[in-house]
């Protein structure tokens, strides 16, 4: 199945990076520390093609995200990164950290351990992990990272997240004033560029989109949920099957912006960062299934969605184990859902076209 690619908006090619770059993987990475250290934090998102070189270093039963991330690195896609910051997010990410250090020519790597709870002990533990990251970057790159710089970075990111939310609010309307594809591109851009410049651009885009006349055609409103989906073309493809994607409950989508690090509470910025990150809406790795399911149901209601498409990456244990439970939860709420398992390549999404279109037909135009 050939996936038809939408013509990318001109701003997709923008590069707002005026500083050295450092890579990160997981949504629990404290980007504020990386920015304060003088880097542009760039998400290592891998690719959606076939994996070539990485298969000689990583078993094929690892998810496509970690395999393609390594593959892209081995093919030189991340040569300009000065380092990479990992999080103990899952078994696969931990193993990627091991293999990356052996096979990727990169001077600086660091792994943050991440608790699952939100108690004071958990916050203190993660705070110590963030401090260790700060020390490691300071020592390796010979830079001072002051509290003041971290607070300033927190403020910048907080503003950026607010701007994303303003842009994202345009999707509350029916039909939405901005497509899921456009929003996904902005989310991807946020994760790879200077946040100050991104914020300025987001503001312009929000104004532009607000002033444009609303689209005339109503389509089924859909929430996406599940494993990380980094490629906006996946969103585009689903929209082309007859939906308006109005929220992506991914760590690479809307959920990434549900975090507020800009309002200090204790005066200790690392403590506040730790508390804010651990308090953010959890992903499947953090367990807390009931909380996650309730939040997803709330998103469906808030955005007036007609259903949920859940996308699990093949071999992504953290999400795949939850599929039967989540399916039951959504059904109990009368929410229509489609559960897809893909190998993460754009081609595999194409192969699911019939199922996605059948799902649209099942909900039916009467729902509009």
């Amino acid at each position, binding site marked *: 199945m050939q996936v038809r690619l939408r013509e990318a908006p001109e701003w997709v090619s923008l590069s707002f990076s005026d500083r050295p770059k450092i890579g990160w993987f997981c949504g629990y990475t404290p980007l504020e520390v990386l920015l304060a250290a003088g880097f542009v934090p760039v998400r290592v998102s891998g690719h959606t093609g076939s994996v070539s070189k990485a298969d000689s270093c990583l078993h094929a039963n690892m998810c496509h995200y970690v395999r393609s991330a390594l593959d892209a690195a081995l093919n030189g896609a991340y040569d300009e990164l000065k380092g990479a910051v990992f999080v103990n997010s899952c078994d696969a990410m931990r*193993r990627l950290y*091991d293999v990356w250090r052996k096979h990727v020519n990169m001077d600086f790597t660091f792994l943050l351990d991440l608790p699952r709870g939100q108690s004071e002990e958990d916050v*203190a533990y993660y705070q110590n992990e963030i401090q260790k990251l700060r020390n490691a970057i300071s020592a390796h790159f010979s830079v001072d990272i002051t509290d003041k710089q971290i607070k300033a970075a927190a403020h910048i990111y907080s503003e950026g997240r607010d701007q994303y939310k303003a842009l994202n609010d345009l999707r509350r309307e029916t039909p939405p004033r901005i497509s899921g594809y456009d929003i996904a591109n902005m989310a991807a851009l946020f994760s790879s560029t200077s946040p100050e410049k991104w914020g300025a651009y987001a503001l312009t885009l929000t104004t532009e989109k607000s002033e444009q006349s609303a689209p005339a055609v109503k389509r089924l409103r859909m929430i996406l949920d599940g494993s990380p989906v980094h490629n906006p073309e996946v969103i585009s493809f689903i929209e082309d099957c007859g939906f308006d994607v109005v929220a992506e409950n991914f760590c690479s989508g809307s959920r990434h912006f549900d975090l507020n690090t800009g309002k200090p509470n204790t005066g200790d910025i690392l403590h506040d960062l730790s508390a804010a990150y651990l308090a953010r809406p959890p992903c499947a790795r953090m367990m807390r299934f009931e909380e996650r399911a309730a939040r997803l149901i709330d998103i469906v209601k808030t955005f007036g969605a007609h259903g949920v498409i859940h996308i699990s990456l093949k071999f992504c*244990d953290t999400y795949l*184990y939850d599929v039967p*439970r989540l399916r039951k939860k959504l059904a109990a709420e009368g929410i229509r859902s489609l559960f897809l398992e893909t190998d993460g390549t754009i081609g595999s999404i194409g192969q699911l076209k019939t199922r996605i279109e059948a799902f649209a037909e099942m909900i039916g135009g009467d729902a509009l």
Partner: protein
Amino acid sequence: MTTMIEAYFSQLETALARKLEQKATARRRFIYEIARIGNRMFSPDWKSAWTTVFVPFEILDAMGVAGNFIEFVGAMLSGTGTAKQYLEKAESTGLSTDGCSYHRTIIGAAMDGLLPEPDLLIGSSFPCDGGLKALCHVGEIYNKDVFIINTPFDSSPEAIKYLAGQYRDMITFITNQTGRTLDYDRLRKCIRNNNIAHGYFAEMMELCKKVPSPATSDDLKNFIIYVLLGGSDSVVEVGRAFRDEFRYKADNNIAGLPGEKFRLLWIQNRIQFPNNLIKLLEERFKANVVIDELNHLYWNPLDEDEDPLIALARRQVTHPLVGPAERRLEVLVELARDYRVDGAINPAHWGCRQSSGIRHLFNDTLQNIDVPVLHLDVDCVDERNFSEGQIITRLEAFMEML
């Protein structure tokens, strides 16, 4: 109502007691003690807990809680050839077949009512994501909360303190759920027992380094399950039994595998369902699995004078599977050298991300010290796709190469 699993443990204990009277081998003693400990789950004197593999069983013991880890039951069901029906049951709910079959089996077994309803569910984030997720499925079936222990990634003092603090929270959780409190004297005795057992374990493992080894490939198969005995008098009995048996054999030049020609290191888990691989290795090639990676005695005797929760936390974070791969790889090199192995076998259990993710590093590391590695693409619990002929062909080629 007596569940099938209760009947299994009961019959196992009775049968082994009889066999022990006929001939007392260390292996029989070991399985007998496991069955006896397993049976406590069904006793009115004990509260019961389903857990993942690395939780502090000593604390449970000292609170009158009989713990049993779900992977053990998954392996047991596979060993008795009954896992298939439970795998199918779990998969009928939409559970992916790419996950770990130890865990899928147990989810199916819980759905089917095979597992007795526990009083408690306690899981650790170490060694894998799947165990915690499976335990949460079981918790949903029994409408019970799961207590989650976040095992830290490193072994720093802060990490040990953080883990010990979680053990304290776990004790509170157990008390709240069951009314049982921690008997610190009993916990100290558990630690004392562990240390005595440690001495026996160290001796028995040292004896296995002899060429030929006094042990057969299966004498210490799945010995990792001794964690279930943690702190009880049984762990001392089992340690002494193996030490005595291996010492006797070593002193009298009795080889575990007569004519031992090749010595092998087994990485990660054994294949749990009945198969002929070990038999083939021993009989045709005179190849003896002299050390299983998971049997490595990684911990030092615990400090009996310090806070027992700190001592247990320290032991936990020093496990080679915690932390970066280097720790595990160093242990593999140490084992390969100490036990003078000719090769290593790694059945890369299909659903195990934490282990198969670094299987290429196993290769690179062991080949650096001239120890070839054979990776078998198998599922250690789910025999539905097991193609013994193909595996044997690969095994034969490997042994011929050695």
